[in-house]
């Protein structure tokens, strides 16, 4: 094993030679290169099947001739409550959105709870109340559930797992591999709000105004785009790893190049200030109520109008385009006209010293 010198803090994260670790690290859950490696090396070889190997937000399963989208997700957010929502809101929206990104109409949810001994029942009631409210607003019932209680110290308050099932729409099948040269790339709203809301709550950072999470159901925005049919090529909600990671995944899946304009990225002032203070890049910060849309250029304006017709998509903007040059690479045009490559993060984003 060669010894390796230290790293340059002139960036947000530093890959350690990935093959060195013999244990699960937090970075394995970051949605970056380590996460992809964990799935590819430790899960896929054992669970191999056609539905799973799609590796989408949700899998397509055919039951009695009907095509269903199935997605499952666990929520372990800390703190449990944050400005703009709580773990219950996320558990509903996160899974609904994964189903909706397939173009499917969500029909039901299941919810499993792992509760820690000593958890306040008042807090639990608040979480369940928000969950119920979010599910009702989306018109999707929670049809099955489970609870387990573990010893104090064995969980962080509570964890929730939700599974969502949706019915696929044969006329509307966006997929990560369908991006084409010339496509316009849109985002449905301001980015990096959720991650910075959590960060501020977790670090006890006092900003003048609390940054609120963007947690929201994206299903109505998907419905608004439905009339555009096959011209909507890709829908993805950039959660863990942020917009940068999602764009990288799409560039690889579709074997296309992506170009985005830094000046077009919608980052709210307070979020930008928080990112500056903590030395984080908003492109890699998690979102929970934003989606990225790849649409044929001819329909770009129509798609923007459709997104803006709903409150959740009111701030939708165009951020870039698909190019035939530099396939599989996401390039960012800086405000000065320079170019840099936006890569996948190796692991967690770490704050910089300088």
């Amino acid at each position: 094993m060669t010894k390796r010198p230290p790293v340059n803090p002139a960036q947000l994260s530093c890959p350690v030679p990935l093959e060195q670790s013999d244990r699960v690290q937090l970075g394995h859950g970051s949605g970056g290169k380590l996460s992809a490696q964990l799935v590819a090396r430790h899960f896929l070889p054992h669970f191999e099947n056609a539905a799973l190997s799609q590796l989408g937000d949700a899998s397509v399963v055919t039951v009695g001739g009907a095509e269903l989208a199935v997605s499952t997700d666990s929520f372990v957010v800390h703190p449990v409550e944050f400005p703009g929502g709580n773990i219950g809101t996320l558990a509903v929206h996160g899974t609904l959105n994964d189903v909706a990104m397939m173009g499917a109409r969500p029909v039901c949810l299941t919810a499993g709870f792992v509760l820690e001994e000593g958890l306040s029942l008042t807090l639990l009631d608040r979480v369940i109340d928000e969950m119920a409210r979010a599910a009702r607003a989306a018109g999707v019932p929670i049809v099955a559930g489970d609870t387990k209680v573990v010893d104090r110290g064995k969980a962080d308050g509570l964890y929730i797992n939700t599974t969502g099932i949706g019915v696929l729409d044969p006329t509307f099948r966006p997929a990560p591999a369908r991006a084409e040269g010339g496509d316009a790339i849109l985002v449905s709203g301001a980015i990096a709000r959720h991650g910075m809301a959590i960060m501020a709550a977790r670090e006890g950072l006092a900003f003048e105004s609390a940054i609120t999470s963007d947690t929201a159901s994206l299903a109505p925005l998907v419905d608004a785009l439905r009339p555009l049919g096959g011209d909507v090529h890709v829908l993805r909600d950039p959660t863990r790893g942020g917009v940068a990671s999602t764009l990288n995944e799409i560039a690889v899946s579709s074997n296309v190049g992506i170009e985005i304009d830094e000046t077009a990225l919608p980052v709210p002032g307070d979020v930008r200030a928080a990112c500056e203070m903590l030395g984080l890049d908003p492109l890699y910060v998690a979102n929970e109520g934003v989606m990225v849309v790849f649409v044929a250029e001819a329909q770009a304006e129509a798609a923007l109008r459709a997104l803006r017709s709903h409150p959740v998509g009111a701030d939708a903007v165009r951020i870039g385009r698909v190019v035939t040059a530099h396939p599989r690479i996401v390039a960012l045009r800086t405000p000065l006209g320079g170019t840099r490559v936006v890569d996948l993060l190796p692991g967690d984003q770490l704050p910089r010293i300088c």
Partner: protein
Amino acid sequence: MKYLSEYRDADIAKSLIARIKARATRRWTLMEVCGGQTHTIVRQGLDELLEGAVEMIHGPGCPVCVTPLEQIDKALAIAARPEVIFTSFGDMLRVPGSDCDLQQVRARGGAVRVVYSPLDALALAQQHLDKEVVFFAVGFETTAPANAMAVWRARDLGVKNFSVLVSHVTVPPAITAILESSDNRVQGFLAAGHVCAVMGWEEYEPIATKHRVPIIVTGFEPVDILEGIWMAVDQLEAGRHEVMNQYVRSVRRQGTPPARALVAQVFELADRQWRGIGEIPMSGLRLREEFAEYDAERKFGVGGLKVTEPADCRAGDVLTGRIKPPQCAAFGTICTPERPLGAPMVSTEGACSAYYNLAKYRATDAAEATS
């Protein structure tokens, strides 16, 4: 966002680039000293925009990058102890030591926490009297006052379960070491604005005079950096070599005297190893004898740990501007961002990694053009 948006104004930046290009009668080689400046240059693609007029060499001015392997190994040894809560700035967590990093220590059960200030680490010590809280005090003169303050307050408050692992370095000796190396190519420097906000720029004046190089105290936003480059190029074209201050909104000639006084009270100058450069005399800070009880190296008996730096990559030559990354035999072959041999390839914005990504980007463009 006052003081930010105006320094990111694309029109001002573009006009500065045009002025620099018009003024340069030849290609000048400048070095930005600070990692924060490197970050902006790479993120904004400034070196690409100045091609032909200015070559920017990314200097040894990032504290993480120049932290010697033995200090990392000391940190890992301390962090693995059961009675210790080890605190650090975030980006030290992935710095590889001889066989692992702080993240892996954490995965194995070590208490490693990211803090944003050494005073947070001190507060942690007051909350956990049954634990030893250690703060990894890295950085240039910029972070030295806060670290000195934490030690000074710990003594003032009588907190006994707090100590610091010191790995402080100072900028002027590094600039001197680069200028005195026989193969130096650097013709002018952008000095680190935040360092000078603390220290001022008096120490740079004899260096500029002796070595006949312009040194510009520069900020961190794109317009700051371009103004700094403009001032350096303008001096070089006129045959001048002065210390000038571009970062007037933050830096005064004498720096911040109370901060300097506090640093001098707690720390003293010492010889220090630099990754990629070797030992530079009197280029580091160590705790003064009267603060010895806050020295983690003594407290945990790791002071004697010595590690030979591996010579399997030419990071040092890259960091001092002797070679460009592609001139290293390992570049892109046995050394890639996924499996880096050295610091500049480890980070996505280190010089080697930036070249690697750009090469990938241009290669695919070229392939596209010819297909």
